[in-house]
């Protein structure tokens, strides 16, 4: 017997309020190419990306701390598979603990050869130093910056 199917698409747009904390973070990126974290007084940790409160202590965060532009890799992966709606592979991204921060922020790793996975993985090994690079024209979102590994000595 004949089996039928239907095509459907979801067309919903969202206008998400980012709140004061995230707005400050992104305006600093957009206008000054600077990165900031917020300190959770109870644990002492500087949270990056910044939040108005710590979900560990459930207390409001207390002060802004400028972080980066240097940092170290805490986690990474390199994607070689194509997925609908996601970038064209290969690309590398992961998490970086910026200098003076205590948590890691997500971002893309650029400027390295990804053709050889094992070699690229070595360059991105946990603990590797990176520098934050900023786009010339910034909108105020996470794609305004990325990380580049330091050149091989």
């Amino acid at each position, binding site marked *: 017997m004949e089996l039928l199917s239907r095509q459907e698409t979801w067309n919903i747009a969202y206008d998400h309020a980012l709140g004061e904390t995230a707005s400050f973070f992104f305006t600093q990126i957009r206008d000054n190419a600077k990165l900031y974290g917020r300190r959770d007084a109870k644990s002492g940790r500087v949270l990056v990306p910044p939040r108005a409160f710590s979900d*560990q202590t459930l207390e409001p965060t207390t002060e802004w701390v400028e972080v980066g532009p240097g940092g170290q890799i805490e986690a990474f992966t390199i994607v070689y598979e194509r997925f609908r709606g996601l970038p064209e592979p290969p690309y590398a991204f992961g998490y970086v603990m910026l200098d003076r921060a205590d948590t890691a922020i997500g971002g893309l790793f650029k400027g390295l050869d990804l053709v050889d996975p094992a070699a690229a993985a070595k360059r991105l090994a946990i603990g590797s130093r990176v520098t934050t690079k900023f786009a010339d024209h910034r909108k105020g979102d996470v794609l305004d910056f990325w990380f580049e590994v330091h050149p091989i000595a």
Partner: protein
Amino acid sequence: MTTPRVGIIGVGQSKFTARRNDASYPDLVREAVVLALKDADLAFDDIKAVVYSLSPDAMVGIGNAERIGVDAVGAKNKRFLRINTGGATGISSVISAYYHIAAGICDVVLTAGADKVGECGDSQTVLNKIWDPTYERQLPLGTITMLAMSAVRYMHKYGMTEEDMARVTVKNRMHASKNPHAHLSKETTIDEVMASRLISWPVKLMDCCPQSSGGGAMVLASEKYIRERKLAAAWITGVGHCSESYYLGDRMGRGFVADHADAHALKRSFERSYAMAGVNDPQKQVDVAELYAPFSNTEFHSIEAAGLAQLGGSISQLREGRFSLGGEIPVNPSGGTLCTNAIAVTAMIRAAEIALQVTGRAGDRQVRRAKLGIASGNGGDHQFFGTMVIEA
């Protein structure tokens, strides 16, 4: 105050496959429900409440899709609510059904659900949308990349290799070959896994779970009901949930409570269900485990979180066969999530499989003399963890 016991008196699961073009989403739910009712020898009228198991609506492409499932589970004019804790949904649903009975509201509860993952195109496209739009939605995050990063940290911390990961796939495929419900049931070798295409370093295609379609259902009943009717049951002796920070980056760096390499909140969840069940020495007391692990590397930290090995210790023990069928504590004798993943019910199937194991009904994948088993489910960005202890 002693809580009356709650037992599992029926389970039902589809033969999971990639696509089910012959059935609509509610049809798949109904399929599993019918199997579970038959297993429990009950009719729809015997069910007094339903807990519906469904994770992201976007996977099945229907908003609040549980509304469409009401008829499939026979819930008209009955108690009905739906649970969503991401990948842990299935086990959270079983546990929620447990609470209905333990609260004394009713004696017989059905929990059921299904997934048709293949219908939404790339599940990673949908799963990218679980991340918060403020800081992370624009990054190409998905569950594969998120857990590939866990693998990277676990390698760094404990020296796990890609061959170690492949070994998990080999073990689970061997188990799945004995499971008529499993989606991927063809045995494989380390070489084959290593040669499969690289998805997200270090995770290769055969380190990943499939996208499965199919349904799962379970019937739970009160001890009074079970005794009065002299039913066979697997007893739920421990339940618990715990969750981590949503922020992956907070599980790294300095001063973290949970490391993204490990499964700290899973350990905390097991602490709760173990305490309830009186399991104080899991390595001695646990006969069989069904631990939610959609990627090969994640089985290691799950085993350790369950207290079945020290941190980093499961690698060598798995290599030695400790967690294979025939070994000391078989882990995922069904083949696990790695071989079958219908997201909405995967974690329920973990509990269902343990129920089968401790009642001696697990067919060719039966763990001999299994009397006490554990099940776990993971959800969100490795954030929500539900665990159960189920005994004969």
